[in-house]
């Protein structure tokens, strides 16, 4: 069974550009989560989808971040326009109603 996959693994962009990160959860997992780890800091919760609905988006930093999960399958996280402080590793995780979250390897974003 395939795990949670994230793409791209690493993205380098200029300040002001747009980047879209994608997450494919484990098949059948209704719950999908986005987290972010800025260098040297804690991993922070961004938001939680249940199927295609946003259950909790309290961790989204500002309106430059847009997360979607059309059809309740894969999810995208778009940052537009990117700022220097957006650099970090973005993790996606999925679960099937239990407390065990299955994480992807993360997408590293570098904003220059």
């Amino acid at each position, binding site marked *: 069974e395939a*795990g949670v996959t994230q793409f791209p693994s690493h993205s380098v962009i200029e300040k002001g550009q747009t980047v879209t990160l994608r997450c494919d959860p484990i098949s059948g997992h209704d719950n999908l989560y986005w987290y972010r780890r800025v260098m040297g800091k804690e991993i922070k919760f961004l938001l939680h989808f249940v199927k295609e609905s946003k259950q909790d988006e309290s961790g989204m930093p500002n309106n430059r971040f847009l997360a979607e999960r059309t059809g309740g399958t894969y999810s995208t996280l778009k940052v537009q326009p990117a700022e220097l402080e957006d650099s970090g590793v973005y993790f996606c995780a999925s679960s099937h109603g239990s407390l065990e979250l299955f*994480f992807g390897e993360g997408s590293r974003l570098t904003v220059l």
Partner: protein
Amino acid sequence: AQTVTQSQPEMSVQEAETVTLSCTYDTSENNYYLFWYKQPPSRQMILVIRQEAYKQQNATENRFSVNFQKAAKSFSLKISDSQLGDTAMYFCASLNYGGSQGNLIFGKGTKLSVKP
């Protein structure tokens, strides 16, 4: 605000020895869960062990065990008979019972190196 503190940024241990990673947390809730996650180099983060706060008995998973001290808000992880494959970043995390599922509060992590 809830916080999780891991006071050891890096640790090392010799293969086959025992190591303990520290974690303290701060919460006003009475019911919550605590987790240890492991992220090997260039790999996914995986759940190592979970503890429900209402359970007094310390959780164990093979070579991994915790020392849960609720009054002290301490949740350390002990790895026995360390193996080279235990080399990884270890994250301690908390989750309020009944709160938003998945809204984990993480510590900054401890980088563990197991040396041959």
